[in-house]
């Protein structure tokens, strides 16, 4: 039997826990409010917007849509600059080259296309995948030479952008490959797949086998991205989980349930610890991955297919399933130093 004194102590402890919990929650709410991102819709595609990519100097972004077009927008003002037409199917992904001069797009029509950003002219149509192209990512070198793509045909392909030639096919995934990312040091490529793995490949074209197979997701992995220092990889899956991996050894640094629905896109800010996630649960969230600490949670009201963030995290770009392209623009710098873990 519990003595009366022990009972009082037990109750006290519970009250203290409750107070601590309330405090933590209020800090988290305060942080999200003080982060003060304001949302505005800058334009619309004629069908679901599936992807967004901000260029390196944060002056432009590209969006891809089920309406088969790509749109270029200026930043920070959000003016629609150009509509690029040519694909014969949904544009699933877009990526700027490291020097911001070229744009790659991947489409349901099984092609990877290269566009000149200034003129909007289609420079190359690269055919070789035998399924829809889901992911594209440019080599982030200042003088880019390659673009990587992933497809429902389970492969990762590398294309020479000067000649349009298919220079490598990487095969090891056992299910469709969903997305791909180039490391910023140019040494590796990461691919995400329905086989629930992330595979790391060397950019040395003589190597065929993956350098590492990252296992930890329990659902199809939808996207993958490197931090700007190439030290970490973030991936997200169809269960709403996000994993932060050590890019050097493949170890799991953080694993957390970020959303209640699939997370189609994630992006790092330049500090390499702020991560934005977007989900079909209608939420866009900002995380400090060192916790992870939830810095901001905004209900967009529609499903989110694509997110990207400018270097200093002051603007988040969103591609929505109602076709709208939205910007979350930060008003005031947050001052509170604590948040919910």
């Amino acid at each position, binding site marked *: 039997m519990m003595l009366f004194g022990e009972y009082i102590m037990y109750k006290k402890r519970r009250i203290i826990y409750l107070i601590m919990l309330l405090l933590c929650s209020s800090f988290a709410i305060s942080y999200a409010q003080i982060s003060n991102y304001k949302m505005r819709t800058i334009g619309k595609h004629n*069908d*679901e917007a*599936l992807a967004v990519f901000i260029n390196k100097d944060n002056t432009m972004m590209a969006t891809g849509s*089920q309406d088969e077009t790509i749109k270029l927008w200026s930043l920070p003002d959000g003016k629609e600059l150009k509509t690029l037409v*040519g*694909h*014969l*199917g*949904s544009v699933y992904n877009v990526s700027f080259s490291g020097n911001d001069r070229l744009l790659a797009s991947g489409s*349901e*029509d*099984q092609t990877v296309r290269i566009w000149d950003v200034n003129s909007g002219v289609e420079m190359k*149509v690269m*055919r*070789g995948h*035998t*399924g829809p192209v889901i992911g594209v990512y440019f080599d982030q070198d200042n003088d880019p030479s390659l673009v990587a793509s992933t497809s429902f*045909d389970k*492969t990762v*392909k590398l294309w*020479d952008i*000067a*000649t349009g*030639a*298919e*220079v*490598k*096919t990487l*095969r090891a995934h056992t299910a469709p490959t969903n997305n791909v990312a180039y490391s910023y040091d140019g040494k590796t490529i990461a691919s995400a797949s329905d086989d629930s793995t992330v595979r790391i490949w060397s950019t040395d*074209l003589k190597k065929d086998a993956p350098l590492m197979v990252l296992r930890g997701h329990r659902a199809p992995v939808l996207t993958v991205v490197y931090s700007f220092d190439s030290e970490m990889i973030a991936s997200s899956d169809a269960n709403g989980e996000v994993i932060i991996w050590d890019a050097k050894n493949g170890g799991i640094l953080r694993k957390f349930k970020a959303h209640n629905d699939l997370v189609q896109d994630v992006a790092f800010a330049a500090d390499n610890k702020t991560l934005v996630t977007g989900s*079909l649960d209608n939420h866009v969230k900002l995380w400090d991955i060192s916790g992870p600490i939830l810095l901001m949670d905004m209900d967009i009201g529609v*499903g989110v*297919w694509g997110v990207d963030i400018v270097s200093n995290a002051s603007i988040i770009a969103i591609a929505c*399933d109602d076709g709208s392209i939205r910007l979350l623009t930060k008003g005031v710098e947050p001052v509170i130093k604590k948040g919910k873990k």
Partner: protein
Amino acid sequence: MKKILILTLFCLPFLFINAQSQLVQAVVSIGGRVYNITNNQPLSVNIEIFDQNGQRINKIKSNATDGSYFITGLKPGTTYEIRFSDFDYMKYSYSIQIPATDKYVEYSKDFLIIPKKTQTKILIPVKLFETHKSKLKYGADLFLSDYINLLKLNPTVKIKIVSFPDDNANPQDNLALTQQRGSSLKDYFVSNGIDAQRISFEGNESTDPDNPPPTGRASKGKKYIGSTYLIIEGF
């Protein structure tokens, strides 16, 4: 002895030049996989490589286990034709221009080959039409050129274009739309040199049972346009 020495000295520069040119003459290789278009299974088929003068320079067979093949000894800056001419499969040809390079390079290319069998169903993997429209989309010629080449290389093959609608709203409208789509595609083939007698078409009142429109959550992010198939009717 003196003569041999003179001869050796005389030949040395030529040997040196030859060795140098060997170093400069880079070699290009191409590798990939060959699959059956109907089931994506790897295929073991004969592959022939012809140079731009029509001279056969190599003949290999793809690996039965994984469909892999590897062709080497190709010269930079040259155009080659890779031909598939197995008895059991439709003839297929792919022209590849090897970019100019001064170092060893490997290129990659996968092939989908069509079995020579009546009623083989080939799904055209791109959306040739807009929703509820029957006019071929701008840019469709890039993809349709593959089928024109195929029909030209296999001149006895007869095909049927089978088109499916984008929804199940109105069966009569759907039939009319899909027949118009079939007709558009046939006209395109005919205008590109294919005999009209080789092509028939068929419309449908309802959506493709083998590739139905996604419903509920699965429809998110997917735009459904009715499928178009080419069915091999005879040889």
